[in-house]
């Protein structure tokens, strides 16, 4: 369940004006601090975006930063960072992102189940908007829990 992988401590909000590199580093911070991923994982995500990985932009101002499991994932986990203003990927205006998720999957199976849950939530227009409107970590967790309970 996504609600188990994205606890309140992994959800942060900031009004700082960040570059996309800072946004990716900050969204991953709770996972690094908890030991879910190594600093190498953050480096791998930044490198992959630099190499043209703007496909992590899902649209609607949302990006899903991730790298491969072997690049430093210890335990499966997800984190979220909501920005006050967009930090466009590679500084490209067409990739304006103000809601960053960091996705760390320890293995393919964990990857599939959590990704499926996140995809359903983000692809539901109502939940997606509610997630963008949420102003606190408890609100985000409540939203996700309610969505998963309703399925």
């Amino acid at each position, binding site marked *: 369940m996504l609600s188990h992988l994205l606890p309140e401590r992994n959800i942060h909000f900031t009004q700082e004006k960040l570059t996309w590199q800072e946004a990716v580093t900050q969204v991953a911070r709770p996972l690094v601090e908890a030991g879910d991923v190594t600093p190498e994982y953050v480096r791998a995500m930044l490198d992959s975006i630099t190499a*043209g*990985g*703007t*496909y*992590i*932009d*899902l*649209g*609607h101002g*949302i990006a*899903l930063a*991730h790298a*491969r499991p072997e690049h430093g994932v210890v335990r499966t986990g997800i984190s979220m960072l909501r920005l006050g203003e967009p930090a466009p990927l590679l500084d490209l205006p067409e990739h304006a992102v103000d809601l960053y998720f960091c*996705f760390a*999957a320890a293995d*393919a199976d964990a*990857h*599939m189940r959590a*990704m*499926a849950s*996140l*995809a*359903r939530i*983000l*692809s*539901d*227009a109502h939940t*997606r908007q509610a997630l963008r409107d949420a102003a606190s970590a408890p609100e985000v967790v409540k939203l996700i829990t309610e969505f998963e309970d309703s399925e």
Partner: protein
Amino acid sequence: MKFLAMCSTGLGSSFMVRMNIETVVRELGLQDVTVEHSDISSAGPDSADVFVVAKDLEDAVQGLGDVVVLNSIIDMDELRGAVKEAAARHGVA
């Protein structure tokens, strides 16, 4: 007919797109449709009838055949329209 959702790793966004195509196929009640996902480098023209990628990977899929390019991979309205049109092109209803 077969849809193949693709991304560069075959792990993340292609899986999301596959799930969403499956949802749309169910919604529309389309028969005899299969959906798979993979990375771009392992796909060839014979891998599927319709290839689906996000906008950023458009350049990487030239030559595969019937390619659908999505502006957003989580926009169900856009995907619904694209799947409907692709199904019609391939005579599936």
